[in-house]
């Protein structure tokens, strides 16, 4: 049973981590994040890096779609913008701790441009507009060869900090973990401010929000900019992690991957973002393991791996929408409520 959780001040009521126990767990989590790479093998650390990047990307999409209700089918393209910006600046000698935020900023600026129609159009129309943007940006990535390297892709120079080359997964892990924690805490705190509350009001009913004095144009644009900033940072980190990128990475499939992550995790919660991103990153790994297991007897199984992935992603989206519209977070809450109230019945 949960005890000693009696709110006596507004500050306490608004706090993210409300009980000493949860603060203790948070500290344990940070220590675990710090020590984790020492205990795991290379494959797991690499996976954790990808996971951290996906968490950042999904957080951006959740701010746009989950909190503000602006559906975006072009998230991957904004990651691409961040990645190419970081690569271009990195090749000109800028250090990674500048290029990554700058990649995010350029993506955010572009997000502002794409967000302009969002005042007049919403829902379906906005989905179509962002979808169009997705295709146009990938086209630009392919054709603007002097910057993006065209279909051959671009090389991203190694990140370097205090003379140490961050050239392996182990070292990149800390960079990615730093940005992931920073951006997630930032996002979580964003929704304790006027801006975040305005986003939620817009999602729930934009006309009512405007009547209440929220400048729709400004806040919708801001949501686009923030979401795209997260995407840009995630894309830039992706570039530094893989050290080379081609336009084929940033296609509609990746946009749908993020949409799936946000839906599966839970729209409009940061915990859901993390759960969804983790889940969606691990599903393909699990599928790969299952397929290579089956391939011992049926070698053809390897060929259906990528279609299987599409099928599973699609079914996950549909299944969660139909059966668990609030996502994994709701399952987590149910489990937690059970233990909070135990031994009484929920």
């Amino acid at each position, binding site marked *: 049973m949960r005890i000693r959780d009696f709110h006596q001040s507004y500050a306490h009521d608004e706090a993210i981590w409300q009980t000493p126990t949860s603060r203790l767990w948070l500290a344990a989590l940070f220590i675990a994040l710090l020590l984790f790479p020492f205990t795991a093998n290379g494959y797991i650390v690499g996976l954790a890096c990808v996971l951290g990047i996906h968490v950042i990307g999904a957080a951006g999409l959740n701010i746009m779609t989950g909190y503000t209700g602006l559906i975006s089918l072009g998230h991957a393209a904004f990651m691409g913008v961040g990645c190419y910006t970081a690569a271009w600046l990195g090749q000109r000698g800028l250090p990674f701790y500048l290029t990554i935020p700058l990649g995010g900023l350029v993506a955010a600026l572009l997000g502002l441009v794409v967000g302009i129609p969002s005042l*007049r159009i919403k829902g379906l*129309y906005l989905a179509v507009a962002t*979808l169009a943007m997705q295709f146009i940006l990938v086209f630009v990535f392919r054709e603007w060869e002097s910057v993006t390297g065209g279909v051959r892709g671009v090389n991203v120079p190694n990140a370097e900090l205090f003379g140490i080359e961050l050239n392996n997964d182990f070292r990149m892990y800390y960079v990615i973990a730093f940005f992931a924690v920073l951006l997630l805490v930032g996002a979580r705190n964003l929704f304790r401010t006027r801006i975040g509350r305005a986003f939620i009001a817009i999602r729930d*009913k934009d006309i009512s929000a405007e009547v209440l004095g929220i400048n729709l144009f400004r806040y919708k644009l801001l949501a686009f900019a923030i979401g795209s900033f997260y995407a840009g940072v995630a894309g830039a980190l992706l570039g530094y992690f893989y050290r080379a990128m081609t336009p084929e990475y940033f296609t509609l499939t990746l946009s749908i991957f993020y949409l799936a992550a946000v839906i599966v995790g839970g729209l409009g919660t940061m915990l859901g973002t993390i759960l969804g991103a983790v889940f969606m990153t691990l599903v393909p790994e699990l599928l790969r393991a299952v397929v290579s297991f089956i391939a011992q007897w049926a070698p053809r199984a390897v060929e259906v791996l990528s279609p299987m992935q599409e099928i599973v992603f*699609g079914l996950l*989206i*549909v299944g969660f*929408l*139909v059966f668990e*519209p609030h996502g994994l977070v709701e399952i987590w809450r149910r489990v937690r409520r059970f233990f909070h109230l135990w031994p009484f019945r929920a």
Partner: protein
Amino acid sequence: MNAPFDWIALAEFALIGVFSGGLLALIALGFVLIYKGTGVINFAMGEFMMLGAYFFYTSHVMWKLPMWLSLALTLAAVAAVAALIERAILRPLAGQPVISILMATIGLASALHGVVDAVWGGNNYEMPPLLPRKAFTFGEILIPGQVVWSFILAALIITAFTLYFRYSRTGIAMRAAASDPMTAYVLGIDVRRTQRLTWMFAGVVGAVAGIVVGSMTSLSPALGGAALGVLAVIILGGLDSIAGAIVAGLIIGVIESLTAGYLGGKVRDIVPYVTVLLILLVKPYGLFGTRQIERL
């Protein structure tokens, strides 16, 4: 530099555009049907086209069934799949926010695409040409036969649907259910049945379009993406207008053909998307769409 402007080429590109616009209008009809019936853009439309083309290929080329039989089988199969989808996914989501339903169709598209890829593989298949290839000539202008015949086919199907919605009892019921489901329900129209029929019709329209497109080019999982380009047509026409779909289909057809002719095939791929963005910025409800008025 002073070469005389080639008016013949321009006329040829424009005419090819008009005729290929028929097919665009047909695909757009599939989108419009579902939008009117259920209020969403069906992002899985391209996958219906793909399913149609692959079913037809399987029955006609692999099983060597006669063409009319494989066509009938294909249409029945796609209609069945569409009905199943309506029952399993769309009905449980009724009343949910538009975003949810939209995302469900995106998930559906991904799943169907994967199924086709898993069953038939990523290879290209050559479909036998179904429409006569003999080119039409108008003076010096030469139009490929397939393009003209696909236009005629599309025109026939669209006309048939328009007449059906105007005069048949079921068609009128479907229109009533589309414009106001609650009232239609109270008046004794089986709204669930009309919704199911809407999806089946859209599936059939998509399948026919898929077979035609597949027979004109070749058959690969990339066909599923073809329908996304048609979004330009339905946005320009206004999401809920069949007349708009026709007019916009022809306009987009001409634009695509002209850009392909003068700027090259690469640019053609993104023309629909640039067009979509421009339309949305200038005239978000399209040429003939119903302007949505929001109230609190």
